[in-house]
Structure formats: C-alpha cells, structure tokens
C-alpha cells in the first residue's frame, strides 16, 4: 500500500533552484554546441533568403548600384510569356515525374525485397544512377538519344518504327527529361521504400499468410498501407525536387529547343546569369519559393487528414 502511494505521488524535487541552474547550464551547453551550425545555416540560409527578398524589389545588374523597382519585377512576371510557359512546363514535368518515380520505385523495391543470391548486386545496380553525376548522365543520354547516331533510334529503325527527335524535338524534349530524371531518381525512391518494406513487422505478414492471403495480396493490402508515412515523405521530397529541376535541363537541352524544356529554375538562371537581371531573377525565385511552400504544406495537410480519416 505504501508503495502504491509513493508511486502515485511524484517525488518532491530537492533543491529546485539548483535544478533550474543545471537546466540552464544544459541549455547553454546545447546552444554552444549547436551555435556553429546555427551560425552557418543563418549565414548561408537565412541571410540570402532575406537579401534576395529585398533584391526582388530592385533593378540590379550585379555591377552598378541597384535601383528601387517597387513591385515592377513581379508585375513584369505576370505578362512574361516565357515565364508562364516555364511554369506550365514545370507543372507538367512534376505531374509526370512524381507519380512515375513513386510507383516505379515501389515496384522495384518490392522486387528487391527478397532473399535471393546476389541481391546486394541488384540493389547496388539500382542505386548507381543516384550517385552518378548529372553531367555524366546528361552526356550518356545525349548519346543514346541522338537523333542521327543514337542507339535508341537505330533500335527503333530496326524494329521498323520511325526515328524520333528526342532532345531536339520541341514535342519530345521535356518527356526525355522526365525519362532521364526518373531513371536517375528511381534508386533513391527504391532505397526509401526498401527501408520502409523491411520495417513492416513480420508478424503482420505471417498473420496474413495464416489467413490464406496470397503474396501479391499481402503486398498491396498489408505492406503498401504500412508504407504511407514513407510515401508521404517521398511525395513531398520528389515534388520539391521536381519544381526545382535545373541540372538535367542545363546539361542536355539548355531549355530548348525553342523554350520547349525551359523550366522555372532554368529561366531564373538565364535571367540572372545570362541577362544579368538580378532583381527579376530574385522575383522568380520568390514566386517559386512561395509556390513550393504552399504545395508542401498542402501535401502535408492532406497526408495528416488521410491519416486521421484512417485512424477514425
């Protein structure tokens, strides 16, 4: 009985002031240890963020003193046809890239989530594109998809199909970039999904098997629902990266032909470092920043709601 009472009553704290002092010392130590990171993140993260916000209200060519522009950079954006084209193309790219990568990496992860001989080799093979430099990827795809001398077209011709323009065609360039980036990101998604699959409790699968569930059914009805948090993370991550697409465009089409693969960040780069319209480029960056923020918050909200619906 006395034991139970003692349990119910929290032990009285001895030396409350000393405890507080100790806690403050802990906090100080914590901040001291975190301060280099805080300093550098602040310096290279927050300061540029604020500064480019200011820049977006200025006309600047990087050389002479900037002049105040008010809202004119933002206003000019609203009737810049190339900007809107780049927005449409970025959205089209995102709508294709995110689901294809997501479903593709889920399937690959499922295929790799088994114990067969040499599985490490397969897993490694899938992951290699992720660590391959984008420049190398771009050059290789450029060769494969060369309209005249590329392997893909010569295979198409052997199969009696018409040769394609790929990166040189205004209709196909963006889709080629989708293909190339899906190839490059599949390994990343697979890695995440594989980790997710392996953390699904074995008991669940065993219980399903005892209930007479097929392997395929167990995958879709037991494992996939367990992957929801992992998928939510991937969707957000892939979306952010899709909206910030740049490297692959830079190393393959340079936004062409005829702006057909110009995406927002590439256009930003062009404005800033080819035309030296620093203020205008900063305005584009801010519009993109707000769009990404809104989209990410939207996705997170949606995931939480779905989770709540499921829980209730």
């Amino acid at each position, binding site marked *: 009985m006395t034991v139970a009472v003692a349990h119910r009553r929290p032990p009285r704290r001895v030396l409350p002031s000393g405890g507080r002092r100790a806690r403050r010392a802990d906090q100080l130590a914590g901040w001291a240890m975190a301060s280099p990171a805080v300093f550098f993140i602040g310096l*290279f*993260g927050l*300061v*540029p963020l604020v*500064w*480019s916000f200011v*820049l977006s209200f*200025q006309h*600047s*060519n*990087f*050389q*002479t*003193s*900037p002049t105040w522009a008010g809202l004119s950079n933002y206003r*000019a954006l609203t009737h810049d046809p190339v900007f809107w084209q780049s927005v449409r193309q970025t959205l089209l790219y995102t709508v294709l890239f995110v689901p294809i990568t997501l479903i593709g990496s889920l399937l690959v992860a499922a295929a790799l989530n088994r114990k067969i001989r040499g599985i490490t080799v397969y897993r490694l093979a899938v992951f290699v*594109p*992720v*660590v*391959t*430099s*984008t420049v190398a*990827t771009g*050059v290789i795809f*450029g060769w494969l998809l*060369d309209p*005249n*001398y590329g392997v893909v077209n010569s295979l198409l011709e052997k199969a009696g199909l018409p040769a394609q323009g790929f*990166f*040189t065609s*205004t209709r196909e360039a963006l889709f080629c970039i989708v293909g190339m980036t899906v190839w*490059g*990101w599949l390994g*990343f998604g697979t890695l995440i999904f594989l980790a997710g699959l392996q953390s699904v409790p074995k008991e669940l699968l065993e219980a399903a098997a005892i209930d007479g569930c097929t392997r395929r059914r167990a995958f879709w009805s037991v494992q996939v629902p367990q992957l929801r948090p992992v998928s939510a993370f991937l969707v957000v991550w892939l979306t*952010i*990266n899709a909206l*910030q*697409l*740049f*490297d692959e465009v830079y190393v393959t*089409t*340079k936004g*062409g*032909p*005829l*702006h057909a693969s110009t995406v927002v*960040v590439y256009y*930003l*780069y*062009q404005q*800033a*470092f*080819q*035309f*030296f319209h*620093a203020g205008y*480029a*900063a305005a584009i*960056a801010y519009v*993109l920043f707000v769009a990404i923020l809104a989209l990410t918050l939207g996705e997170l909200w949606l995931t939480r709601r779905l989770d709540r619906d499921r829980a209730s």
Partner: protein
Amino acid sequence: MRRTRLAPIAAAAATLLALSACGGGGGKSKGISPTDALDHPLTSSITLWHGYTDVEAKALQTLVDQWNSDHPSGKVNAVFDGGNDSALQKTTAAFVAGNYPDVAYEYGSSTNNLASQSKLVDLTSLVKNTPDFNWNDFFEGERLASTVNGKVVGIPALQDNLALVYNKKLFEQAGVATPTNDWTWQDFRDAARRLTDSAAKQYGWAYVNDGSEDTVWRYVAMLWQGGGQILSSDNKSPAFDSPAGLQALQLLHDMAVTDKSVYLDTGNGDYLNLFNSGKIAMLWTGPWDLSSINSDVDYGVTYLPAPTGGTHQTISGPDVYMLFNHSTAATNTAWQFIKWFTSPEVDLQFSIATGDLPLRQSVTTLPDYQKFLDKYPGDKVFVDNLNNVKNARPNIASYPQISSAIGQAVQAVLLGKADPKSALDSAKSQVEGILAGSG
C-alpha cells in the same frame, strides 16, 4: 549532385545575394587617373586571373616567369581561375569579397557587363597616348571588342574568326570541287547537298542549333556578308530584319529543311567528332578546333562563302584582359606587364607556343612569323581571314537578350518550325521590346 537539387537554387540565391552587395560597395572607390600609371618605376606585385589550360597555360607561365625575373619589384602572379567560361561570374563575385585580381582574362561578350564596374581601369587615353603601344596595330575586330561606348575597357587577349574547314577526302570521294576563297553561297549549298548521303548519315555541313550565341554568331556572319547589321548604328532599334537578314535565314532554311544537308548539333559539340569520323564534310569554325582534328583527317581551310553581290566577311570573338584598380602602383605594374605581354615580339612567342592567332598586324612582318606558319599550316587562312572581320557585335548590356531572341529565330527556321519571314518578324518585335527596356 543529383539529390541536392536544392543546391543550384541555393547557390544561385546566395550568389545573387553576394553579388548584389558589390553594387553598393563599388561606388565608393576612388577612380584612378589612367595617366598616373604611366611609366613609373614598378613598386608593386600584381595578380592575373586566367582560364588557360594545358599548352596555353604553360606558355603563359613561361612568359610570366621571364617577366618576373626581369622585374623583381613588379612581379606577376598568374592564377588559374577555373576556366574562361565562368570568368565573368568569378570576377563579379570577387568584387564583393574584395579579392578581385589586378588583371583578368574575360570573354569579349563580358566587357559590357564589367564596363560599369567602378574598379575598372579606363584605358582609353592610355592606349591612345602611349606612342610605343601602337593601339591601331591590333586588328580592327579586337579594338572594337575592347571598346564599350567609346571607352577602351580592355586589351585584346585572344583573337579568332570563323572560316570554312573541309574534309578533303569526302570531297574527292563525292567528286565535288573543293572550296575556294571565292565560293558563293550557291556553290556552298550545292556542295553540301552533293556531300549529303542520308542513308550513310553523312552531312554536308553542321550547325550548332542550341539557340545560344554559338547558333547566333554564324548567322550574324551571314547577315554581315549581305550588308546587314544587327542593330541600327545608335543601337536603339533592330536592323537585322533587312533583306540581308532574310536572305541569310532563307539559306539556312533551304539547306536544313529543303536539302536536309545540315547536321544540327544540339550544342553538345558532337560536330567535331562527326567531322573526325567523316560524317560531316564542312564546318564553319575557328582555329581553336584545329588542334582537335585527328591527324588522319586531311582538311583544308578557306574563307567563308559569299552571297551574290556580298562579301566574304567573317566574325570574330576576341577576348580581352581587363585591368582593375587596387592602387596606382599595382595598376602601373598591370599596365606595364600587359603592354609588354601584348607587344609584337612577346605575342609572337605566345602564338608559336600555342597556335593562337597573332593579336597584331605587325606580328606578321616579324622574321620569326614564318616559324608560326610552318608549325600551324591551317592557321594561315585564319590570319588572312582577320582582314575579313569588318564588324563587331554590339557591345551593349542587353546584347545577351538580343542574341537569345535571334537564336530562337534561327533555331525555329532550322527546325522547320517557322518560315524565315515570320521568324524574323517575331525576333524583330522581341528585340524592339528589349531595346525599349520592357524585355
């Protein structure tokens, strides 16, 4: 790296940031009176940034070492800046950090951006009032490229131009007479057509078709050949929408779309590999490509062909050394060094070591010039061709945008997406917008 697509945007933002600061900082510096730097005894060492690699870097260092041993109180420290492609970005960023060089190698297209930099040394009176510098000895195209709004902002560093380079064997096999300096566009078009074999994927000509300046400048040469200009003489309105501009686009259309005799290079530079493997018979290219042509390819070089009633004009893209002021003493050293480095005798040494074209007319009269020709036989035509450089692209801050608009027009025509007239009209209205300041 792939997973950090955030990186470019963050880097871009940070650079935007960092760079924007320099605008403010730049205004406070004291300007230097150029004549202050004239012929004082050297008391300061300087730093020179360049993007040379390989043979050129070695040749530069050899000459710098020679200068340093003769001038112990005014030494030059030559620093590789990571490559000429990014020289403008690097120098611009360096102004913020305050560690900008005394001399920097810059592309001619960068001059108008750096012309407004307050640290820049205005060389106008210096080059014109220094008798032994002999400014007019530099080829005309170089002098034009070094001048922004009448102000001399740099000293010529590299000279090139476009000429017709052809594979002799392919001409022989097809039984086509080889190009001459008197060729017309019609001769050129006919030859390209006859040298094209679509089954063997062999083309008469190659054209860089990424819409960049690489696409534009070949078109600009054709525009000038027909007597056209990019902009009006006051740089206030477009002038390429002329019969000369149309006729040039028409030729591109006729060759690429009608004859299909042109390999359209997406900008990855494959044209040279294809030329080496005998898939392309003719190129319009510069001396920089000669060293990459395989030794088993027997090639010839001639002037560019001319349109009926036109000229064999070509285009050059000269690069410059720009001087930035730290102190009078440093600028004095910088000027003395550059003056020496671009003097005819030293320039010839550099040319002999590298195969780069001489910067000055008088170099071709030096006794050792023959050594250069013997060592680089293909360069002879390129040197003669310097006299066909009569025009320069406008040195104005909005040129990259104008170039982009023209690039889109040329690309649209080559891809068969637009007829020459409507492509030209659309480029014209875009350029009007750019020049009016709304671009």
